[in-house]
């Protein structure tokens, strides 16, 4: 079985790298400038700009009169992100991928036909996947890597060259595709070919090889073999690092959160598409905003799921937020909403000039809920709900709690709420324990009157409701026991103490500055609606009386 290779080529790569972040510019004439002002020159243009007469190498002054021409500065970080996206696209089909510059990728198609179908279908799928990642590409499939590269550079769209038809198909291409974008040597060769009257690859292929070797040496022979599609070599695969990062360098500083959310949405869609192409998800999103210099900002606080850092880098300042998720997710809308809520709670405080978003790749969550498992919130919805609730009550007021290993009153801390998924085995065990509950409503008599004052099998607990903060009270002692209580803050708590039990003395942390010592009393006070039970505490270090809570 013959071997086939596919090449993905991105024409006008610097332009396409910028268009990933600004897809609305696709229908306009766009020129990418390079160099320092005022000596900027055109580095790349799109097809519309080329039709308008703009070409590479022109100065900014020359192209400024062109109406409707959009100018953008070259962005190396965005090109790096586009190249990484291209690699992800190729790697989602084949693990054997070779890099030919930033705009060209060759991949080995061996063994893919049973998985993805015939070669044209694979080529179309490659093109579609690249388009999903924001790149308009040319895809070519051929029997050797070099022929695939030439065809991708020369033919737009999807091209499949059958075995043995390489020379015939490549013959119509101009000789410029052989030399690519490179420099001085290629310029000399092109000049030579031009002088010889060679315009197409078929002209070069028809030259006698001995005569060509005498004039151009081994380079000429190699170029002729390329033109015939007769080269043969092994692929040099690369193993790209799993770095998922998207960047936008802004022309103008961003002041409001709404346009920022718009751009973040685009970045997140690109990131999620790349992660999906590699069958990965993410559990940690890092947002790094470069802020304009000279603005004051405030301290950043941290919460359960997101952390913030403000750092200075050279002349600019970096604002970083990290969003940690309890489960791997791959939903750009959820990420966007979470980032919006986080930025709303922790705004950068200065205009933004650069946005960098990266994701930590992890394996996606593989979970199948059982039919008979108890209800559980969906992780995506739960994260959004928690973020929204944190926006209402505050970040430190929502979550699950963890008891601390201390006797100090109020020894607990809030932590991130992330319920573990229910295992079917554990649920079955729970069901067995609860199987004694059989109270069909229909089995009840029409009038039930029960008086179960004896021992109950349920081990119920008298709950204490805490007053936060504790309520200061004035207590009058009689025979060593609290006899009267008066609470200025709560008028319903005052009068004679009907019953008191205690004191129970406790202390701790005396070896530290935050030592505590207290006497606890349980008291009953006649209230408006009946007798109420309270826990009364005397702070032995401060000497004050407080009501800690009520038994209910």
């Amino acid at each position, binding site marked *: 079985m013959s071997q086939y290779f596919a090449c993905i080529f991105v024409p006008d790569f610097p332009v396409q790298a910028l268009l990933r972040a600004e897809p609305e510019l696709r229908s306009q004439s766009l020129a990418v400038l390079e160099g320092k002002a005022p000596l900027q020159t055109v580095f790349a243009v799109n097809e519309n700009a080329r039709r308008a007469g703009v070409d590479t190498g022109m100065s900014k002054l020359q192209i400024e009169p062109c109406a409707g021409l959009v100018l953008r500065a070259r962005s190396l970080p965005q090109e790096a992100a586009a190249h990484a996206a291209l690699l992800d696209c190729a790697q989602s089909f084949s693990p054997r991928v070779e890099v030919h510059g930033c705009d060209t990728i060759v991949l080995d198609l061996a063994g893919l036909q049973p998985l993805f179908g015939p070669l044209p279908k694979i080529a179309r799928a490659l093109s579609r996947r690249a388009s999903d990642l924001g790149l308009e590409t040319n895809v070519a499939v051929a029997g050797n890597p070099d022929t695939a590269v030439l065809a991708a550079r020369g033919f737009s769209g999807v091209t499949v060259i059958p075995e043995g038809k390489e020379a015939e198909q490549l013959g119509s291409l101009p000789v410029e595709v052989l030399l690519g974008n490179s420099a001085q040597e290629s310029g000399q060769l092109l000049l030579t070919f031009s002088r010889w009257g060679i315009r197409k690859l078929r002209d070069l292929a028809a030259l006698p090889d001995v005569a060509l070797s005498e004039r151009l040496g081994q380079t000429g022979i190699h170029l002729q073999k390329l033109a015939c599609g007769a080269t043969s070599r092994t692929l040099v695969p690369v193993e790209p690092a799993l770095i998922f990062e998207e960047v936008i360098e802004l022309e103008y500083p961003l002041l409001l959160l709404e346009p920022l959310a718009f751009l973040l949405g685009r970045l997140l869609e690109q990131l999620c598409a790349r992660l999906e192409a590699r069958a990965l998800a993410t559990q940690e999103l890092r947002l790094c905003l470069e802020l304009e210099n000279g603005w004051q900002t405030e301290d950043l606080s941290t919460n359960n799921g997101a952390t913030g850092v403000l750092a200075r880098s050279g002349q600019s300042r970096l604002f970083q937020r990290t969003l940690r998720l309890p489960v791997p997710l791959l939903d750009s809308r959820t990420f966007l909403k979470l980032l919006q809520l986080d930025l709303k709670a922790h705004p950068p405080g200065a205009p933004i000039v650069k946005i960098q978003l990266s994701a930590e790749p992890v394996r996606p969550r593989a979970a199948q809920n059982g039919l008979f498992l108890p*209800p559980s919130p969906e992780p995506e919805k739960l994260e959004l709900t928690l973020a929204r*609730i944190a926006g209402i009550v505050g970040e430190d007021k*929502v979550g699950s709690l963890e008891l601390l290993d201390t006797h100090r009153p109020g020894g607990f801390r809030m932590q991130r709420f992330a319920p573990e998924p229910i295992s079917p085995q554990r649920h079955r065990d729970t069901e067995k324990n609860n199987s004694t509950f059989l109270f069909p409503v229909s089995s009840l008599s029409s009038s039930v009157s029960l008086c*179960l004052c004896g021992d109950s099998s349920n081990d119920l*607990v008298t709950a204490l409701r805490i007053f936060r903060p504790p309520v200061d009270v004035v207590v009058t002692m009689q025979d060593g026991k609290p006899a009267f209580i008066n609470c200025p803050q709560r008028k319903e708590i005052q009068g004679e103490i009907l019953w008191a039990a205690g004191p129970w003395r406790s202390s701790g942390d005396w070896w530290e500055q935050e030592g505590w010592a207290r006497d606890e009393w349980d008291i009953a006070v006649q209230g408006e609606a009946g007798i109420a039970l309270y826990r009364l505490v005397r702070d032995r270090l401060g000497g004050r009386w407080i009501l800690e809570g009520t*038994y209910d």
Partner: protein
Amino acid sequence: MSSLPLVSPAALGRPVDVVATAWPTLVFERLSAMPKLAGVTPASRLDVRPAPQMVPSGVREIDTLTGGLPRGCLTEICGPASSGRTSVLLAALAAATQRQEVCALVDISDAFNPHSAAAAGVNFEKMLWVRCGGSKQKAGSPQRHRDTEKKNGKIEKPVEQALRVTDLLLQSGGFGFVIIDLGDTSLKMARRIPLTSWFRFQRAVEHTATVLFVISQVPCAQTCASLLLKVSGKKLSALSCQLSAGTSPAHAQLLNGLQVQGELLRSRLERKPAGTVTTAFTTKVG
């Protein structure tokens, strides 16, 4: 209106018993022929609403009385301070979390005691605690300025926060229990909660597996509550008088053996048993 007669003349000419048997069918045929009434379903043909699934409340006596707590319904437990509402709440919470259900507690007065809950057997990993009364975000950014203007610079009240949080929790779905603790909320504030909010909550949990559980001093949800239980400290006064007259020293006494009486005030379930029940709580203060 259509000029079609409701009963055909041919049917009127038939014997009485024949007309009587064919009457409902004829009426439905005529009704369906009328364009304005084509979509109307007669009350006799409406589907019977299925009985809700019941889950244990954690208190055997309450389960005996009510059949448990209905899923997809609003259950309210009311009573004054020290009546045992929170103990019932903790028992229900412990039972639900031990069944591996995810629960949410909207704590309006931030009165939840983790140590009592731990003693009751609540699994904290399955419990989301929302402590209302926190302040809004700090001022400073353009976005926050707009929020501040929206709220006229006022800090949201805990009850308003609780209603918004409950809305979010119910919309999120998947919670086995959503508990609103109005236990320390003043009667004035509790009665200010609009009835439309309770209707909205009731509609949100309908046809879901969520038990919406409210504890309060007086009934707040009114007709929206499918199950309304009133609890009161039955022997509290007698016990306290007895203890205060006792000769044992104060430090030898313990808060123990309180008895709580539960009374079923309203039940919209299949059967409506009316009666009272009391249950004993053993003190195990955390």
